[in-house]
C-alpha cells in the first residue's frame, strides 16, 4: 500500500487555534471532579462502569453458586435468585457495556483520534457523566430499598414486572425504571456530543474515510443508541405510569386470588415491541464499537493495513441500519403471526452477511501479517473466535422453527453471553491493554496480563460451551433449581457444578486484572512514546499522556488514512497519520 508521492503534494500549514475556544480548569475540583475535559470524563465513566460491573460480576457468582450447588446456600432464596439474574443482566448490558464503550472509550478516543481539542460541548458532556452516575446510584439504591431490587428479569416484561409476587414490586421496579430513564437522558447528552464532534470537529485533512474504524464503530453505535433508546424510554415511562398511576398501557385484565385487579385492557406485547426495538439495536450498540476497536488492534499489532477498509465502513453502516429491522426475532414465542416471524427471520439472516464480511476481513488482515502476539492482539483474536461462535448460534436462533423449541433455555443464555457478553468484554480488555500506556504513561504487567487472558479466554469456553448442551436437553433459564425432573439427566447437574467452578475461576482472573490496573498505575514499567508504533493520532500528541487540550498550539494536520503499516520504501513500518509527506521522503531516502 503506497502513500501519496511526496513531491506532488502541496500540504497546508497546520491550523493554529485560538486559546479562547477551550475551557480551562482552575482548581482541583474543576480539573478532576466537575471536569469538562473529555479525557477525565472518559475515566470517570470507565471507573464508574467498571465498579458497577464488578457488582454484577459478584451477582453472577451467586447465581452460579445456586445453580451449581442448589440447596447449599440458604441465603439465596428463589426471590433473591430472580433479583440476581435481573440486576446482573441489566447492569452488564446497559450500565457496564454501553457506558464503557460509548462514555468511556468514546470520550477518550473520539477527540484524540479525529484531532480535536475536546468534545464540541464540554459542559453538556460533563452533565452527561453526572446524570449517568445518578442513574447508577438510583440503581444501587434499589439494593437497599424495602423488598430489594426488581426480580422481573432484565427484559422487565409486564404484566408480571409490576405485579405482586415479583420481587421488588414495591420499590425495586420503580427505581429500576427511574434509573433507566435517567441513563437515557444522560446518554442522549453525551451521544449528541459524540456525533457532532465526529462530524464537525475533525482536524484538517481528516475526511470521514480517513477516520480509524474505532471512530466509525463508536460513531455509528452512537447514532443507533440515539435512535433506539427513545423506545426504551417510552416503555419505561409507560410502565412507570402503570405502576404508579394505575394506567393500563401494558396491563391486561388480571384476576389475582379470585379478585379482579384495577388494571384492564392493556397490551403486554406492546412493551415487548418497544423493549426489543431498543433491545436489538442495543446488541449492535455494544458490538459496533467492539468491531471498530478490534479492527484497529489487529491492524496495529499485525503491522498490516486493514483488509477492505471501505467494506468495513460499509458493513458497520449496513449492520447499523439492519439492526432496526430484526427486533421481533426476540419475540417468536409471543404468539405473533407466522408471516411476521418469517420476515424477521429473513432480516436476521441478512444481517449475518455484513457481519461475516467483517470477520473475513479481520482474518485476511492477519493473513501474512507480521503478527505480534501482544496482549491486545491475543484479546483481539480471542474476540474473533468468540464472536464467530456466538454468531453461529445466532443463526440457529434467528430461525423461528429452531428458536421455538430452544426459547427460554440455557442455549439462549449461552448464545447471548458468547456474542454480546464475552466477545465485547474481550475487546474491552484488549482495548484497555492497548490504550493503558496512553492514558497512564505506564504499561500493564505482562505476566498478570497473560494469566488474565488465558484464564478468561479458556474459562469463558469452559462456562459457555457446556451451557449450549444444557439448553439442547431442555434445561430452562431463569429457574432457581431444577429439582428431580425426568428429562434432565444427572450428568446435567455435574455439568452445572463444573460450569460454576469455571465461572468462579474466571471471576478470580478479573480480580487479578483489577489488581493489575491499580498496581501498574504506580509500579508498572514506564511506557515509551507510542509503544505499539501506531499510526493513529491519539499516539501523536505532544505529551503522553495527552495534556489538557490534547494538542499543542497547533492542531495536527492529517496526510493519510489510519492504516499505513509496512509501507514499501518507508524506513519505519508505520507512517503516522500526521507525518508530513516530505518527512516520509526523508525516511525513505535512508538506506
Amino acid at each position, binding site marked *: 500500500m503506497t502513500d501519496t508521492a511526496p513531491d506532488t503534494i502541496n500540504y497546508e500549514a497546520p491550523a493554529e487555534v485560538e486559546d479562547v475556544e477551550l475551557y480551562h480548569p482552575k482548581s482541583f475540583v474543576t480539573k478532576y471532579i466537575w471536569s469538562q475535559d473529555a479525557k477525565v470524563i472518559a475515566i470517570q465513566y470507565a471507573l464508574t462502569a467498571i465498579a458497577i460491573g464488578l457488582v454484577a460480576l459478584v451477582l453472577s457468582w451467586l447465581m452460579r453458586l445456586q445453580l451449581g450447588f442448589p440447596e447449599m446456600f440458604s441465603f439465596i432464596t428463589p426471590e433473591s435468585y430472580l433479583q440476581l439474574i435481573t440486576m446482573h443482566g441489566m447492569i452488564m448490558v446497559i450500565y457496564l457495556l454501553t457506558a464503557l464503550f460509548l462514555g468511556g472509550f468514546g470520550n477518550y478516543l473520539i477527540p484524540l483520534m479525529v484531532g480535536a481539542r475536546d468534545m464540541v460541548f464540554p459542559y453538556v458532556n460533563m452533565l452527561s457523566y453526572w446524570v449517568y452516575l445518578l442513574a447508577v446510584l438510583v440503581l444501587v439504591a434499589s439494593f437497599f430499598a424495602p423488598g430489594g431490587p426488581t426480580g422481573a428479569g432484565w427484559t422487565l416484561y409486564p404484566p408480571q414486572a409490576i405485579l405482586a409476587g415479583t420481587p421488588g414490586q414495591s420499590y425495586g421496579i420503580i427505581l429500576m425504571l427511574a434509573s433507566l430513564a435517567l441513563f437515557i437522558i444522560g446518554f442522549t447528552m453525551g451521544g449528541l456530543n459524540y456525533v457532532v464532534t465526529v462530524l*464537525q470537529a475533525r482536524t484538517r485533512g481528516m475526511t470521514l474515510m480517513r477516520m480509524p474504524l474505532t471512530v466509525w464503530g463508536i460513531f455509528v453505535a452512537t447514532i443507533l443508541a440515539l435512535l433506539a433508546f427513545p423506545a426504551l424510554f417510552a416503555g419505561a415511562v409507560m410502565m412507570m405510569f402503570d405502576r404508579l398511576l394505575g*394506567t*393500563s398501557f401494558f396491563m391486561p385484565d388480571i384476576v389475582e386470588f379470585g379478585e379482579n385487579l384495577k388494571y384492564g385492557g392493556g397490551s403486554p406485547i*406492546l412493551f415487548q415491541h418497544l423493549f426489543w426495538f431498543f433491545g436489538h439495536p442495543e446488541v449492535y450498540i455494544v458490538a459496533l464499537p467492539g468491531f471498530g476497536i478490534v479492527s484497529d488492534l489487529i491492524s496495529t499489532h499485525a503491522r498490516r493495513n486493514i483488509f477492505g477498509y471501505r467494506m468495513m465502513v460499509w458493513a458497520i453502516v449496513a449492520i447499523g441500519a439492519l439492526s432496526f429491522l430484526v427486533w421481533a426475532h426476540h419475540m417468536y414465542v409471543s404468539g405473533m403471526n407466522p408471516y411476521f416471524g418469517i420476515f424477521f427471520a429473513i432480516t436476521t439472516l441478512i444481517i449475518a452477511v455484513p457481519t461475516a464480511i467483517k470477520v473475513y476481513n479481520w482474518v485476511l488482515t492477519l493473513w501474512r501479517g507480521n503478527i505480534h502476539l501482544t496482549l491486545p492482539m491475543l484479546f483481539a483474536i480471542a474476540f474473533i473466535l468468540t464472536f464467530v461462535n456466538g454468531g453461529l448460534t445466532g443463526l440457529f436462533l434467528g430461525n423461528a422453527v429452531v428458536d421455538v423449541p430452544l426459547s427460554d433455555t440455557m442455549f439462549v443464555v449461552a448464545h447471548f453471553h458468547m456474542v454480546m457478553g464475552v466477545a465485547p468484554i474481550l475487546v474491552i480488555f484488549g482495548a484497555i491493554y492497548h490504550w493503558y500506556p496512553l492514558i497512564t504513561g505506564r504499561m500493564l504487567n505482562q505476566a498478570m496480563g497473560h494469566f488474565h487472558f488465558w484464564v478468561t479466554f479458556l474459562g469463558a469456553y469452559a462456562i459457555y460451551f457446556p451451557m449450549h448442551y444444557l439448553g439442547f436437553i431442555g434445561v430452562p433459564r431463569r429457574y432457581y433449581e431444577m429439582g428431580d425432573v425426568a428429562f434432565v439427566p444427572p450428568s446435567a447437574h455435574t455439568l452445572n457444578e463444573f460450569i460454576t467452578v469455571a465461572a468462579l475461576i474466571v471471576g478470580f482472573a478479573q480480580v487479578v486484572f483489577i489488581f493489575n490496573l491499580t498496581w501498574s498505575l504506580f509500579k508498572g514499567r514506564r511506557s515509551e512514546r507510542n509503544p505499539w508504533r501506531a499510526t493513529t493520532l491519539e499516539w501523536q500528541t505532544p505529551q503522553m499522556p495527552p495534556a489538557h487540550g490534547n494538542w499543542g498550539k497547533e492542531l495536527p494536520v492529517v496526510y493519510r488514512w489510519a492504516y499505513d503499516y509496512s509501507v514499501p520504501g518507508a524506513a519505519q513500518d508505520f507512517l503516522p497519520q500526521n507525518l508530513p509527506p516530505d518527512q516520509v521522503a526523508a525516511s525513505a531516502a535512508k538506506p
Partner: protein
Amino acid sequence: MNLIRQLTEKPWVPAQARIDDQHRGGAFRLPAATLALRAFLAVVTVLFTLLILSYGTRMEFEDWRPTPPLRLLWVNTAILVLSSLAMQWAAVCARRGEIDGVRNGLLAGGAFAVAFLGGQILAWRHLNMLAAFDITNPAIAFFFLITALHGLHLVGGLVAWGRTTAKAWRGSDIAHVRLSVELCTVYWHFLLLVWLVLFGLLFSGNDNLGVLLTLCGLR
C-alpha cells in the same frame, strides 16, 4: 455532504489523498450547535413516532374506548401557534439587527409558551372531572403521557429560552444572541409541528388516526 460519494472514496490512493489533504475537517457548513439541535430533533421525532405507533396499535383492539374531545385544546393550539409566531418575529429581528424586536419577540414567545403549559394543565383537570374519566382507559392514559412528554420538552426549551433571553437583555451585541434565538425558534416550530401532528391525529377527533390507518391498509 454527499454521503455516498464520501463512502466510496479510496483513502489510500494518491489521487484521493491530494483531494483529502484539502479537506477542512467539518462535514457541514453549520455551527456545531445547529447540527446538535437537528440531531436532537431526530431523537425526539423517534420518541413521538413510537408513541403515536403505540397509540395506533392500541386503537386496533376491540375494547378501545375513545375520550370526548376537549374544546380547550383548540385554544391551547392557538396559543402555541402564537408562541411560535412570536419566536419567529424574534428570529427575523435578530437577522435584521433590531435588538428591541428580539427582546419583545422572546418575551412574547416565552409568555405564550407558559400560557400553553398552563392551558394543558387545565385540560388535564377538565379531563379529570369528566364523568367518563377512567385512568385504565388507554386513550386517557395516552393523553396524559403524551401531553406530559410534549410539555416537558417545552419546559426544556424554556430553559434554553431563559438563557437566550438573559443574553439578549445583558448585551446589545446582536451577533452574540442571533444563533441562540434562531435555534430556540427552530425548536419552538418543531414542538409546534409535533403538537399539531399529535393534536390532529390523536386528540382532536377520535378517528383521525383511524382514517390514516385505513388509508395505509393497516385497518
